[in-house]
């Protein structure tokens, strides 16, 4: 058995890399795969809290790389999915304390036992980024539909191509379909046009995602959440299913519109 390592990256911070890593990891495990999610944001670890596993950390990524523990000891089993494991980042070290070869060795070992290794990349394009993309066979870029995030995404695509990670795919996160409809937000076609990149999926801005994250549960477990549904479809595409891209539509119901006009945009979305 030979697994696949995928890096989740972005350039700009705060666009949804960690959220995406947690949800894709859970999504692949829900589909019956054995999955490890790896937090490489050393010094700013987050994936553990997003997955609700922060109280179970004993060893971390740097411990395993520096051989202070066994690989199996550094892996924390998910609360909901027995085939999903987290290797947390170290909090007390910095991004230069490991290198790309060490991380690549680790991933090659994990690939012997797992179907997917999903790497949460730190923001920026420095050492931490270089480390995280080193082991990957595929790259997914997360962006929001804003000029600054897209510009950084374009820069990262160039760097990935230069590192032989060809045809990275883009997730557009935090889309507000109502704003797109009003002509106040860049849409998928603008982005494809200007960045010339394949779109892996679109995720709406979703209050339910925040509620789920508050509880340490990836939103993909919330069947009613539009963002969770979007992540399910994205996961299916990663796993090789041919799921068509749907445009996000503001919900049609009168109450939704009233809520939306009042600024209570609980459900400004449906499919992705």
């Amino acid at each position, binding site marked *: 058995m030979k697994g696949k390592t995928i890096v989740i990256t972005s350039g700009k911070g705060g666009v949804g890399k960690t959220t995406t890593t947690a949800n894709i990891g859970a999504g692949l495990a829900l589909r019956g795969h054995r999955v490890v999610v790896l937090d490489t944001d050393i010094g700013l670890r987050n994936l553990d809290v997003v997955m609700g596993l922060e109280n179970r950390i004993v060893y971390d990524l740097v411990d395993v790389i520096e051989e202070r523990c066994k690989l199996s000891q550094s892996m924390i089993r998910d609360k909901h999915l027995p085939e999903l494991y987290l290797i947390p980042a170290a909090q007390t070290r910095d991004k230069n304390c490991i290198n790309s070869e060490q991380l690549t060795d680790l991933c090659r070992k994990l690939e012997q036992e797992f179907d997917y290794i999903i790497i949460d990349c730190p923001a920026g394009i420095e050492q931490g980024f270089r480390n995280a993309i080193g082991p990957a066979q595929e790259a997914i870029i997360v962006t929001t539909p*804003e*000029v600054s995030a*897209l*510009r950084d995404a*374009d*820069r990262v695509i*160039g760097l990935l191509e230069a590192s032989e990670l060809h045809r990275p795919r883009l997730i557009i996160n935090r889309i507000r379909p109502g704003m*797109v409809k*009003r*002509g*106040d*937000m*860049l*849409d998928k076609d*603008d982005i494809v046009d*200007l*960045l010339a990149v394949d779109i892996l999926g679109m995720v709406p801005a979703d209050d339910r995602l925040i509620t789920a994250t508050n509880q340490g549960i990836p939103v993909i477990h919330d069947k009613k959440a539009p963002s969770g549904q979007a992540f399910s479809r994205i996961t299916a595409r990663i796993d090789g299913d041919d799921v068509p891209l749907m445009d996000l539509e503001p919900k049609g119901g009168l109450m939704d519109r009233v809520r939306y006009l009042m600024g209570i945009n609980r459900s400004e979305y449906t499919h992705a």
Partner: protein
Amino acid sequence: MLNKLRRPRSREGVGSSPDGSRSIARERLHNALNRDRYDLMAPEVVEALRRDLLNVISRHLDVEDQFHELEIQRMDGAFYLVASVRVSSLPRWAAVS
């Protein structure tokens, strides 16, 4: 006076061009990407372009194997490929009928 102050809030004001702020964002992203890509262009890209251009041109014209000038220039926010190459000798053109 009052009108003038109010105008920016109206439909034609800042942030609401005919189809909203999207077209402004699109234009700005387009320019930023071009600018970045221009700044980051690798020398190998120019080298590959030089080779390919010379190949194509020499199918039609007898030219020197060096460009006199070959670069992407930026003028008034737009980008131009500027190339000039010395023609060694002109061929006898097929007669214009």
